[in-house]
C-alpha cells in the first residue's frame, strides 16, 4: 500500500508538472497522448526507484525479518534431514563439454558437503542436431566414468521436442517425478553451490507451504566488456533491488526459471501448462513458462519466495549486445503472451497478475518510450512549423488557449526523472560503504569509477535497447515466427556484423536528429541523449563485445566483483575444469561415433533396435548413402534416424573401417590417424 502511494503520488506530481510544462497544458490530443505516455513511463521508473530505496532501508535495518532464512537458526537448519532432490539441467544445443564441466563442478561441490546420497542429476536434452547430441552422450559417459557417478548423473534426450523447455521439464516429471520430493532447475550456464543446495532443501523441509524458492543468481565469468558491465551491474545493484523486491513480494514472488527449488507434488498437480487458445500470439505453447508456473502454484495455495540471502548462485551473461537482444526477442514474445493469462485466467493472485504486468512492461515500456519520442517530435514540429493555434483541436472553451512556456519546470521534471534513474546506483554505493564491502569491489575509488563507467555504458545502450525492444514487441504482437535457439556464450562481434545489425538504428537516429536540428536548436539538444547513442550503436556494440577490453579493465581492477577477488570453491572448480578441457577433435561427433570403437559402443547402448521391416529397409538405404558419401548426404532428420539405430551404427562402424583409403571414410580414418599421431 505504501509503495503504491509513493509511486502513484510521485507520478501524479510529475504528471501535473508535465501538464504545465506543455504549451497548451494538455489542451490538444497530442499533448494528452504525451501526458498519458509520460505517466505510464514515470510510474514504471518510480517502481524501480522505490524498490531500491526500500531495499536499502531493509538492509540498514539488518535484513528482512519476514524472510525464510530469518525464521530458522543455523542449528535448526543443520538438524533438518534432507529429502530426495533431482537437479535437472534442460539443455538445447549448448557448448557440450563446457556445460557438463559445470555439472561436474556442482556435483563435486555437493559431494564436498557429504550430501550426494540425497541428490541425483538429470541432463535432459532437447538437442536436434545429431552432432550435438552424440557429443552430449559421449561427454556424459566420460563424466560418469571419471566421477564414478553411475546412478547419480543421468542423461535423456527427448526425441520429440514439444513445448520447448517447459515441455522438456514436463517430460522429466512424467518419467521420474515420483522418485523425488523436490527438483532444482539449472540452466546450462548456472552454478549452485552444494552448501546452497543443501540449505534450499532444508528450508523447503521446514516450510511446507513453500512451493518454489528462488535464489538471486549473480552473473559471473564475464570476459567481454559488455558481459563485465552486466556482471558488475547485477552484482553491485541487485542486493538492493532483490532485497526490496523480496520484501515487497514476500510469498507472492516470481519464479525465474532456473536456480530455484520446486516442490514436485504440487508442481505436477497444479502447474501443468496448457496451450493458449487465443488468436495470433496468444495461441500455442506458453514460451515463458516460469511466471505462469509461479502463478499457478500461488493459485493452488502455495507460496513462492525470493530469498536473496541464499548466496553462491550464479549464471552467465550473453557476451555481446546482439546475443542479449536475441535472447530478449524470445523473452519479449513470451512475456507478451502473459497478457492473455493475466486477463483471462481465473483464480490468480493479484500479486502474480502484477508480476505478469511487470514482465510485459519490461519490454512494452520501450515501445511507449519510442511513442513518447515520436509524439514529442510531432509537438515540436507543430510548434515550430505551424502558426500558433489559439483554438486547437480538443479545446472547447470560448476563450483562446495561450501557449505558455515554463522551461524551469521542464528542467525540474527532467532532473527528477534522472534522479529516479540514477540515484539508486549511488544508494548502492552508500550501502556498500555502510556494510564495508567496497574492498570486495576493488576499493572505494575504483568502485566509484566502475559505477561511472557502468552509467556511461547504460546511457549508450538504453536507446539501442529501446529501439530493438520496440521492434520485438511489434513483431510479437503481429505474431511473426520465432525459432528457439541456444545462446552464444563465447564469441565476439565483428565490425561487419555490428554494422549490419545496427545500420537501421543509425539511419533512423541520424534522420531524426537532422530533422530536430532543422526544427529548433533546443529540441536538437534535447534529442542528443537518445540520438547520439543510436548513431554510435555499431561501434558501441562491437567495442563492448571485445574480450581484450574487458580483461584489460579486470587487470586494472575496474568492474570488479567479490567473486573475482575471492572465488568460492565451486567457481574455482568450474573454472579449472573448463580451462582444462578443450575439444578440438578433427572429426565431427558423428564421424567419431562411427569410427572410434569405444564411442561407437557407447552410442549403440543409447540407440534402439528397430525391427519393423519397412523401417529396416529405409534405414539400410540411409546407411548405404552415409557409407558412400558421408553424413552430409543425409538431411538432419535422416541423420538422426541413423544415429538412433543400434544395428546401423554397428554396421557403419564395421564397414567404415574396411573402406578404401580414397573413399569418404578412408579419408576420415586418415584424419583420425593424424589426430592419434599428434597426441
Amino acid at each position: 500500500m505504501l509503495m503504491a502511494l509513493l509511486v502513484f503520488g510521485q507520478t501524479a506530481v510529475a504528471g501535473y508538472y508535465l501538464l504545465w510544462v506543455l504549451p497548451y497544458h494538455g489542451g490538444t490530443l497530442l499533448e494528452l497522448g504525451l501526458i498519458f505516455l509520460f505517466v505510464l513511463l514515470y510510474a514504471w521508473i518510480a517502481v524501480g526507484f522505490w524498490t531500491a530505496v526500500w531495499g536499502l532501508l531493509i538492509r540498514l535495518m539488518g535484513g528482512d525479518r519476514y524472510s525464510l532464512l530469518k525464521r530458522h537458526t543455523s542449528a535448526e537448519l543443520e538438524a533438518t534431514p534432507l529429502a530426495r532432490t533431482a537437479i535437472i539441467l534442460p539443455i538445447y544445443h549448448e557448448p557440450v563439454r563446457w556445460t557438463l564441466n559445470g555439472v561436474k563442478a556442482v556435483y563435486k561441490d555437493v559431494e564436498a558437503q557429504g550430501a550426494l546420497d540425497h541428490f541425483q542429476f538429470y541432463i535432459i536434452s532437447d538437442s536436434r542436431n545429431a552432432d550435438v547430441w552424440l557429443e552430449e552422450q559421449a561427454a556424459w559417459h566420460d563424466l560418469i566414468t571419471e566421477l564414478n557417478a553411475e546412478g547419480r548423473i543421468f542423461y535423456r534426450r527427448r526425441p520429440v521436442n514439444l513445448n520447448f523447455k517447459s515441455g522438456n521439464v514436463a517430460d522429466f516429471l512424467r518419467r521420474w517425478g515420483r522418485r523425488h520430493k523436490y527438483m532444482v532447475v539449472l540452466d546450462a550456464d548456472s552454478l549452485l553451490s552444494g552448501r546452497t543446495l543443501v540449505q534450499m532443501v532444508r528450508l523447503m523441509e521446514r516450510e511446507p507451504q513453500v512451493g518454489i524458492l528462488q535464489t538471486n543468481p549473480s552473473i559471473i565469468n564475464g570476459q567481454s566488456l559488455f558481459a563485465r558491465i552486466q556482471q558488475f551491474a547485477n552484482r553491485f545493484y541487485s542486493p538492493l533491488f532483490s532485497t526490496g523486491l523480496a520484501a515487497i513480494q514476500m510469498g507472492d514472488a516470481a519464479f525465474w526459471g532456473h536456480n530455484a527449488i520446486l516442490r514436485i507434488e504440487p508442481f505436477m498437480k497444479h502447474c501443468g501448462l496448457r496451450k493458449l487458445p487465443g488468436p495470433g500470439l496468444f495461441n500455442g505453447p506458453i514460451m515463458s513458462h516460469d511466471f505462469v508456473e509461479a502463478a499457478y502454484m500461488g493459485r493452488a495455495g502455495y507460496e513462492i519466495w525470493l530469498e536473496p540471502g541464499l548466496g553462491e548462485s550464479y549464471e552467465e551473461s550473453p557476451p555481446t549486445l546482439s546475443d542479449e537482444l536475441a535472447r530478449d526477442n524470445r523473452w519479449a514474445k513470451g512475456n507478451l503472451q502473459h497478457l492473455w493469462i493475466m486477463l483471462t485466467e481465473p483464480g490468480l493472485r493479484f500479486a502474480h497478475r502484477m508480476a505478469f504486468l511487470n514482465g510485459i512492461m519490461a519490454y512494452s515500456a520501450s515501445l511507449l518510450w519510442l511513442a513518447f519520442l515520436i509524439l514529442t517530435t510531432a509537438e515540436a514540429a507543430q510548434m515550430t512549423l505551424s502558426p500558433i493555434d489559439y483554438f486547437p483541436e480538443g479545446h472547447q472553451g470560448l476563450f483562446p488557449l495561450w501557449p505558455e512556456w515554463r522551461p524551469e519546470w521542464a528542467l525540474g521534471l527532467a532532473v527528477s526523472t534522472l534522479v529516479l534513474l540514477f540515484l539508486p546506483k549511488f544508494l548502492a554505493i552508500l550501502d556498500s560503504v555502510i556494510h564495508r564491502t567496497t574492498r570486495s569491489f576493488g576499493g572505494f575509488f575504483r568502485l566509484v569509477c566502475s559505477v561511472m563507467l557502468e552509467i556511461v555504458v547504460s546511457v549508450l545502450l538504453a536507446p539501442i535497447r529501446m529501439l530493438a525492444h520496440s521492434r520485438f514487441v511489434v513483431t510479437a504482437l503481429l505474431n511473426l515466427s520465432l525459432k528457439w535457439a541456444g545462446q552464444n556464450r563465447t564469441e565476439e562481434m565483428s565490425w561487419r556484423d555490428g554494422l549490419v545489425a545496427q545500420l537501421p538504428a543509425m539511419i533512423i537516429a541520424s534522420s531524426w536528429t537532422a530533422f530536430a536540428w532543422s526544427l529548433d536548436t533546443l529540441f536538437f539538444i534535447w534529442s542528443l541523449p537518445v540520438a547520439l547513442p543510436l548513431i554510435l550503436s555499431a561501434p558501441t556494440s562491437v567495442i563492448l563485445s571485445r574480450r581484450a577490453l574487458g580483461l584489460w579493465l579486470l587487470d586494472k581492477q575496474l568492474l570488479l566483483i567479490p567473486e573475482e577477488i575471492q572465488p568460492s570453491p565451486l567457481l574455482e572448480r568450474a573454472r579449472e575444469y573448463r580451462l582444462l578441457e578443450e575439444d578440438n577433435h578433427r572429426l565431427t561427433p558423428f564421424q567419431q561415433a562411427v569410427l572410434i570403437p569405444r564411442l561407437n559402443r557407447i552410442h549403440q547402448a543409447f540407440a534402439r533396435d528397430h525391427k519393423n521391416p519397412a523401417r529396416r529397409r529405409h534405414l539400410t538405404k540411409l546407411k548405404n548413402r552415409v557409407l558412400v558419401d558421408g553424413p552430409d548426404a543425409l538431411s538432419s532428420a535422416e541423420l538422426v534416424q541413423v544415429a538412433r539405430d543400434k544395428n546401423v551404427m554397428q554396421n557403419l562402424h564395421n564397414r567404415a573401417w574396411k573402406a578404401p583409403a580414397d573413399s569418404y571414410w578412408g579419408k576420415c580414418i586418415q584424419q583420425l590417424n593424424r589426430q592419434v599421431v599428434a597426441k
Partner: protein
Amino acid sequence: MTEMAFQDVFNRVYLYLIASGTDMTGERFRALLQLIDDAITKASREGGAVSVLEIAMDMVPGRFTVPPEKNMEVHPPLKRGSIGYRPVSNAQPVVK
C-alpha cells in the same frame, strides 16, 4: 599384393587397435603381423574375392581383446507420476 597395400592394411588395423585403447606391447605387435600374414594367405586362397583389409578387420575381434566398455545406467527406470502422484518420502499435507 603390392607393398603399399600391405602398409595400408597394417596401418589401418594398427590404428583400429590404438583407437580401441589397446596397449600395443611387443607381443601384440607380433600378433598383428601374424594377423596380416593370415589375412593375406586367406585372401590368396579365396582368389581375391574379398580384400585383405576386410579379412584382416574381421579377424581383429578374435585375435585381440578390446578393453570392455561398461554399460552404464543411462537413466533410472520410468516411474510414471503424472496421475495419482505420491512422493517417495512421507507425503506432506497440501497447505491451503
